[in-house]
């Protein structure tokens, strides 16, 4: 019997023109929590897809318990006891928890009738055994994200999987839920199940994993024991150069009120209640005000209401003393607002446009770039080159690269270049580092601090606790469309924030 339950030896996977996995070796011991660390595009997902049978490697072998196996499709993977919790859950919203768990692995009696009673007993037994609290009869659409994740985990357990892959499982959880998940993972390891934990959050790796394998740009960097390493070393391995993990900034010197939001109400598109309910706050010049909260608590709609993407049904928004409550998007932008949108593919970029066309998306009407309705292409090119240089936006063909073909980090840099170069008194930045790697995050954080130090007001919306704690000068926590607390990042703890975020704690009226 081999020491390893799964061995992926010298895996090579090519896509036309590039090598996504180049000689990668990953060995998973029985009963260990093994973290797989790497930036975006490092090849983590490709490697997992190979293990799951979605891709066939060009070279290399996969061994299960020391024997070479061939995994042609996900069914083979399941048969080998490999299960995966995807980053985006694969659940059917209108089915009950039980139906979702048994889907694809139903036990049936004669005539193909479902044996739901047995399945139900098995699920309940599993959930009790591992402390995975779920309501088996609730519909998935009615339960929390944390519970949905537990459903996904139960799906793996129900199929008797003993190799469990977690793909970025903590992205959607509150700090308390993350702690719970860590506990559950430790429990699995104790049981003898082996866990592959894909993540880019170093804290979690340090907290829960036994060993870490690091990938970089499709290549294998190394495998280390967690107890012999530290966060700095891991991030250096991941990025390939020393990285600054802490955000360095001077204390804020807040000035006048730039943005004043009073009793803002924005309706929800999903449910009947208001997504943003009677929210009031001020953002001052020279400060970073962060709206924290779990995804889906009205932050998106709040920004839509402020920027004009969605019509607010009540309240007043004042920007630099000017009432913009009913102004068009363009008028608001011209009144002094720049906006790094939450979804860079939906709002931030016209993906079919070239980089230079995207860089002038907010400025193309200015006399600098057009005369009598005709675009001045030379000026556009000059301006684009200037921004590309200044913000180090990398792409295959410079200004004429189609935005679609750029990497996520550089797409985001392009948006940041465009919005920051407008030099407006207010910057609204929504999840500016979502899905980016450590290097890019470091850069974007420094740019946001720079913006603040220029005396601009920054309204930051973030789901990442580390970002919230590290970057902001003041934190407002949003829960179910309302501001439930205002805290000072220097005086609070992630645990306290977590209590606000989950609605367990709220301040009285003083938040308004």
């Amino acid at each position, binding site marked *: 019997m081999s020491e390893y339950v799964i061995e992926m030896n010298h895996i090579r996977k090519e896509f036309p023109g590039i090598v996504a996995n180049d000689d990668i070796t990953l060995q998973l011991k029985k009963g260990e929590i093994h973290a797989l660390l790497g930036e975006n595009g490092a090849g983590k997902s490709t490697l997992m897809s190979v293990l799951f049978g979605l891709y066939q490697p060009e070279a290399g072998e996969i061994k299960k318990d020391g024997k070479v196996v061939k995994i042609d499709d996900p069914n083979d993977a399941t048969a080998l006891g490999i299960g995966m919790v995807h980053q985006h859950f694969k659940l059917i919203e209108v089915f009950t928890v039980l139906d979702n768990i048994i889907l694809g692995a139903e036990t049936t009696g004669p005539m193909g009738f479902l044996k739901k009673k047995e399945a139900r007993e098995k699920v309940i037994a599993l959930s009790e055994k591992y402390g995975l609290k779920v309501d088996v009869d609730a519909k998935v659409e009615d339960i929390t994200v944390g519970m949905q994740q537990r459903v996904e985990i139960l799906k793996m357990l129900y199929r008797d999987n003993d190799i469990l892959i977690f793909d970025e499982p903590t992205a959607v959880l509150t700090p308390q839920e993350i702690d719970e998940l860590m506990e559950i993972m430790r429990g699995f390891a104790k049981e003898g199940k082996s866990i592959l934990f894909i993540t880019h959050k170093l804290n979690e790796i340090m907290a829960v994993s036994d060993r870490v394998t690091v990938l970089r740009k499709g290549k294998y960097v190394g495998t280390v024991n967690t107890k012999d390493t530290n966060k700095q070393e891991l991030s250096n391995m991941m990025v390939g150069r020393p990285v600054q993990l802490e955000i360095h900034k001077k204390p804020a010197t807040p000035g006048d009120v730039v943005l004043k939001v009073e009793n803002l109400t924005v309706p929800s598109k999903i449910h009947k209640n208001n997504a943003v309910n009677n929210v009031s706050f001020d953002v001052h010049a020279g400060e970073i005000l962060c709206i924290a909260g779990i995804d889906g608590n009205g932050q998106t709609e709040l920004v839509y209401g402020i920027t004009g993407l969605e019509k607010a049904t009540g309240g007043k928004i004042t920007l630099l003393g000017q009432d913009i409550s009913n102004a068009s998007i363009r008028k608001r932008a011209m009144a002094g607002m720049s906006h790094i949108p939450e979804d860079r593919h*939906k709002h931030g970029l*016209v993906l079919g446009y070239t980089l230079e066309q995207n860089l002038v998306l907010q400025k193309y009407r200015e006399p600098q770039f057009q005369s009598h309705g*005709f675009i001045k292409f030379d000026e556009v090119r000059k301006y684009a080159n200037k921004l590309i240089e200044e913000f180090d936006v990398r792409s295959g063909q410079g200004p004429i690269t189609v935005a679609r073909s750029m990497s996520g980090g550089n797409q985001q840099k392009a948006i940041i270049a465009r919005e920051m170069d407008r030099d407006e008194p207010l910057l609204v930045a929504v999840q500016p580092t979502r899905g980016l790697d450590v290097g890019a995050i470091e850069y974007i954080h420094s740019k946001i601090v720079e913006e603040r130090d220029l005396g601009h007001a920054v309204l930051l919306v973030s789901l990442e606790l580390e970002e919230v704690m590290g970057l902001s000068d003041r934190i407002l926590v949003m829960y179910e469309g309302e501001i439930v607390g205002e805290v000072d990042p220097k005086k609070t703890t992630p645990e306290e924030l977590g209590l606000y975020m989950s609605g367990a704690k709220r301040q009285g009226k003083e938040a308004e």
Partner: protein
Amino acid sequence: MPRLEPGTGKTKWYRTDGAVAVYSALISILIGMAVGAIIVVIVGLLKSNISPTGIWEGVRLVFLGVFSTGREGSQLSFGFNAVNLGNMLFRAVPLIMTGLSVAVAFKTGLFNIGAAGQYLMGTMGTLSVGLWLGWAGVPTFVAWLCAFLVGVILGGLWGAIPGLFKAFLNINEVITCIMTNWIAANLVTWWFDAHEMFKNSAEGGKVGYVIPLKNVGVVTPKMFMDVLFKGSQANGGFWIAILIAVAMWIMMTKTTFGYELRACGSNRHAAKYAGINDKKNIILSMAIAGCLAAAGASLYYLSGNTEFYWSTYQKLPAEGFNGIPVALLAANHPIGVIFSGIFMSMLNISGIQLKYLTAYNEYISDIIIAVIVYLSAFSMLFKTVLSKKIRKGTGGNVNAEPAPAPAAATPEVQNAQEEKEIIQNTKDFEEDILEDYKQLFDETAEKVQAESEEGGQK
């Protein structure tokens, strides 16, 4: 994604996206013609009255019909045929215009299947105004201009209707276009039915036709087309169509207005985010599309000789729908539309030659067009495949001929950087492509469905 030539900072012309679009269009055309030829062979084999020589003649006419000069003795003869070529250009005009109509709407992310209705409204406006002013004795040029403009404006207003519904009520423009098509068809029928004065009763045996504009002398000047193509129907309308296509190209690519339109088409959300009034642009785009389709009708009927059968409630004009393959073949490029429009018209001429010179009927050319319509939906697929091939090819060249290094970067560093970049890009890129395909197939399915519904009604 074409790659940079090392050192030059430019992509070689034969590797640009535009060139690839042309290749993929040519592939569609070739396959379409080949299928047409195969059908000619099969039909020939099945029908006892067509001999092997007849089959061979049919195949040749499919490809070279426009150069056919009839028969010398028992042999088909080919050569420069001014009448065929001129008629080809003449018939290309409405196709180019409806092609432009579809293409411009497409660039704004709208599928203008309503070109047929807009075309009919243009016909109605131009014929009525042309005849009125002609009878009233208004100077020919003024009458011509008014007839043209009224037709175009009517078409534009007609096109704006689906735009309004889309912008304010978010009703899919395909549905409203189909509805406005049939409303236009019935409206036009009623208009000419109710007004006796427009009916051509002078020529016996012709029932249901509107008086052609040559009767009142309101016709487009020939502008040397009669010199170039003697004996054909070609006239200055062709030059006007080219002028409009060039104007559309300039509008779409060189102006802030075109920038806005294309931004709306490419990503409506991002356009809105940038403060672009997406509703206004949707309405304007559909109105322009309507104007273009109607201009096609105006130019066609202002030739004077063409006759309009006004019982359109039974049948929508084919030009309206043929604009879709014309636009698709040209990858929605306004200049490309000129060529694809001429090509479609050439197939028509081939069909006519088949009918007159062989035992085949002209519907073979419709089959070829139909095949090309289906293939042109795939031309995007050809395009992606070709782009990948070309990208691979260039990749090799980058290593083979390292060029003088721009700035400080040595070629090796540059290549290494590019390579890194590509690896980083792959995941995003692949996902995007998959998404694109999904969208493309969804859209295609929608289109095909819409077309088949239209076809069923025909």
